């Protein structure tokens, strides 16, 4: 774990309930000073709710949020040293660019001359020179986004919270703004907590990514860790494309596992597993290889269903004998297979990742059932018993 001094935002067992439905569950998160941390997950996973709790727009149901070691439970949004860039920009329509950016400084009663200087500096930083007197209604989405960022950054917050700020921009502009934002963050050294559902965006910009699903944080790590070593089936499926296969170990040969799938045999490099263990493995489309001839230790066979042209790669869909479809990314100059031909699928043993053991899954199912039983008992007998079961 990181040095305590470096932690700027700390969430301890944070939970949020709306009308009895938990949208954030037992969230523990430490954000380090100066890092670019992304909360990544599908819509409804609780990432925006988490951000709103840090900003102070929403109260925590239980748990603690600390900002620089100080519990912020009693601080209103205007008393917290964080600023937010909203998804809808939320620029004040009755103010021009300058007045929008100066809003926070006016609240802080900064002398007028200094405000003028800092606003001009900010406008230069986000490249909005010449648009000082424009109203939000007279600007494009990208320009409004820059104003929103400038308006938040000018207050020199300890932490900048960004709620899907690039969601409304077109692809090209979004890519450009991703890099600009990243550079801005590196230049200013301000901690960014960034919310997005776009895994590519998260991989491009972040120092660390926290992947959330259904109110639970599934994994936190560097983009490389999250992409190349996903810890759960969900992370493997959500971050990047992946093919997930169910299998069991038939033979252990030091670190090499011989595994058996419904559709054939395969080989995999992973230390610490026993014979006959059930495992889920994940292979990225770019790591799957096709061959007309059988490779040693591999006997997975499938039929080419279609080729999809996607620019730099061709995505080939292969249907296995058990009906599962695998996506394979291939280079256009690789050997071509006609649709309908049968091929063998294999991979480099080190390029397959174990994302989930079946034991874990069974454990989760048991835990889920136990919680449900506790809850039903609680509902029957006493209201306090029900709350206890949540803490299990």
């Amino acid at each position, binding site marked *: 774990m990181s040095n305590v001094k470096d932690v700027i935002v700390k969430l301890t067992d944070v939970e949020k309930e709306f009308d009895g439905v938990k949208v954030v569950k037992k969230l523990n998160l430490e954000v380090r000073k100066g890092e670019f941390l992304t909360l990544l997950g599908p819509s409804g996973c609780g990432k925006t709710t988490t951000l709103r709790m840090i900003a102070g*727009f929403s109260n925590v149901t239980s748990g603690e949020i600390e900002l620089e070691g100080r519990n912020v439970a009693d601080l209103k949004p205007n008393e917290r040293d964080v600023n937010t860039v909203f998804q809808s920009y939320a620029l*004040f329509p009755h103010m021009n660019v300058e007045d929008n950016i100066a809003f926070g400084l006016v*609240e802080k009663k900064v002398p007028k001359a200094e405000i003028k200087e800092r606003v001009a500096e900010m406008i230069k930083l986000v490249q909005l020179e010449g648009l000082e007197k424009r109203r939000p209604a007279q600007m494009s989405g990208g320009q409004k986004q820059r104003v929103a960022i400038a308006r938040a950054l000018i207050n020199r917050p300890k932490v900048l919270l960004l709620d899907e700020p690039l969601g409304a921009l077109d692809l090209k502009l979004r890519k450009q703004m991703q890099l600009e934002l990243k550079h801005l963050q590196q230049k200013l050294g301000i901690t960014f907590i960034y919310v997005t559902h776009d895994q590519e965006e998260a991989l491009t910009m972040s120092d660390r990514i926290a992947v959330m699903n259904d109110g639970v944080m599934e994994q936190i790590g560097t983009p490389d860790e999250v992409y190349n070593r996903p810890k759960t089936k969900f992370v493997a499926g959500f971050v990047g494309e992946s093919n997930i296969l169910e299998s069991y170990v038939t033979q252990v040969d030091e670190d090499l596992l011989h595994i058996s799938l419904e559709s054939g045999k395969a080989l995999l490099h992973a230390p610490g597993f026993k014979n006959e263990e059930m495992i889920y493995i994940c292979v990225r489309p770019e790591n799957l290889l096709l061959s007309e001839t059988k490779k040693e230790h591999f006997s997975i066979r499938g039929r080419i269903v279609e080729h999809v042209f996607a620019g730099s790669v061709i995505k080939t869909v292969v249907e296995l004998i058990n009906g599962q479809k695998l996506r394979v990314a291939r280079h256009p100059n690789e050997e071509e297979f006609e649709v309908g031909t049968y091929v063998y699928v294999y991979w480099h043993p080190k390029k397959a990742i174990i994302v989930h053991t079946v034991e874990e899954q069974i454990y989760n199912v048991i835990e889920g059932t136990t919680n449900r039983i506790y809850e039903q008992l609680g509902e029957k007998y006493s209201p306090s018993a029900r709350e206890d079961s949540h803490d299990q």
Partner: protein
Amino acid sequence: MINKIKNKVTPVVMIGPATFWLILFLLIPLFLVIGISFLQRNGYGGVDMVFSLQAYFDMLTPEYLKIFIASFRLSVATTVICLLIGYPFAYVIAHSSEKAKPFLVLLLMLPFWINSMIRIYGWNTLLRSSGIINNVLISLGVVDVPLEMLYTDGAVLLGMVYDLLPFTVLPIYTSIEKLDPTLLEAASDLGATKLHRLVRVVLPLTMPGIFAGSIQTFIPSLGLFYISDMMGGAKTMYVGNLIKNQFMSARNWPMGAALAILLIVITLVLMRLYTKVGSLDDMV
């Protein structure tokens, strides 16, 4: 062929009656009023068919100017008080829970279902010397002699504010309602306290509603005559009463017509201002 006839006849059948109605009961009377204002009155309470601008010149005499000023002051006072009460009122409704909101709006609309004159009679029974308020005050020993509340300028103002308040509240309520809540969050996020949020964000952005509410209050307040009749005892003369008197008792129709046209002109000017501000609203 039949279709062609149908196409021509259908619109006439559809909008014909309404057009006929408007011509008969709005356009013709309006032209009559305009016409009469340029005629000469005769001694028997009617008009002579002689062109005259006398009515318009008469309006410039000090007596009439005094009435205009009194009317104007009453209308301004009504509008200002309606705004001061109406804005917080609208704010509370707009920020109440989704369940309470329709009920509160219903309460606001409820008085419209009862004739305005009957409601003013209601105030009459409350305020008069032997009315409910005075009876209560006397029996509690707060006062010995009944307070003179009815037939004062204050009573007229009270009646006006009471009658016109919904017209102020509704447009303001609409403009507060459609205010994007993330703007309020943004203001708080940038360090604004609740008061600053109101002054720097909410008030400027609901200005179109405030303006619409003011005009919708000010215009009818200029012309209302029965409130000052019933609650002011016709002690102070206002434009509305003046017009009524010119037609009903003084029998000076050209004068009454000219005054009515003055009111129409003022209304049109204010409406023009209103639509201008309305289009500003769209730009924001």
